[in-house]
């Protein structure tokens, strides 16, 4: 899984969690408790996915310390090093 994919997954989980939070509150206010549990379960799973994707991204991001690959803007790629 590449770094770009990680970015994508994290943003998708944000979108899912915003919607799930909204739906959970709605279902809770409507006393539809079974549905509340379902939405909330999805949101928690999605939060875990975001967490593990972040760990994966960190692994990829910080292991490229010695590589220098110039990008389109002409930067040296030095900033990829661990800080």
């Amino acid at each position, binding site marked *: 899984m590449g770094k770009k994919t990680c970015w994508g997954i*994290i943003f998708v989980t944000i979108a899912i969690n915003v919607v799930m939070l909204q739906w959970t509150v709605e*279902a809770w206010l409507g*006393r539809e*408790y079974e549905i509340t549990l379902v939405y909330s379960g999805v949101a928690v799973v999605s939060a875990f996915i975001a967490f593990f994707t972040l760990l994966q991204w960190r692994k990829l991001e910080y292991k490229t310390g010695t590589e220098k690959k110039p990008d389109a803007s002409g930067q040296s790629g030095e900033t990829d090093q661990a800080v």
Partner: protein
Amino acid sequence: MSNDCPKERGRHGKKSKSDMVNLTGNIEQKDDMTLNRRAFLKTAAGASMALGLATVPFSLRAMVGLAEDDTEHVEIVQLDQLPRGESVTFNYPTENDPSILVHTNDGELVAYNSACTHLMCPVFYEKESETLLCPCHKGYFDLKSGHPIAGPPQRELPLIEVEVINGTVYATGRQYRHG
């Protein structure tokens, strides 16, 4: 200075020999280190987790709520004391749930919890227009269905099921999502 912070002397520090750092000396380097794409992604992931976990209290409350049940016959009023076009207030299912029973101009009986679904102001019956009105922010609800028709409220009023037994109106149950 010999006791410089190692960071100051490092690749991004003020005394760096790196050409890139010296070329961009007019840029606030601290901001560069904290407001960057890595920090952005970490914040985004944090936000996603916070949003996801924010649903947990609701599911905990929901689990408590699953055990609850609020069906009970509660006497509201004698039907002959409530002519058409009149309304009466009562509390159902508990003393903390203000409610309104309306005898419509058509002769129907409808009852709702009367706390406005916007910010909980009491809702009133408007005889002329046959609507329920919340005066706080001009919220209007359909009398027949309890659904919001104008103003800020977004959700319908909880519907109270009523039954007439021997000329007395009873509240017998409540529905949150209806119509």
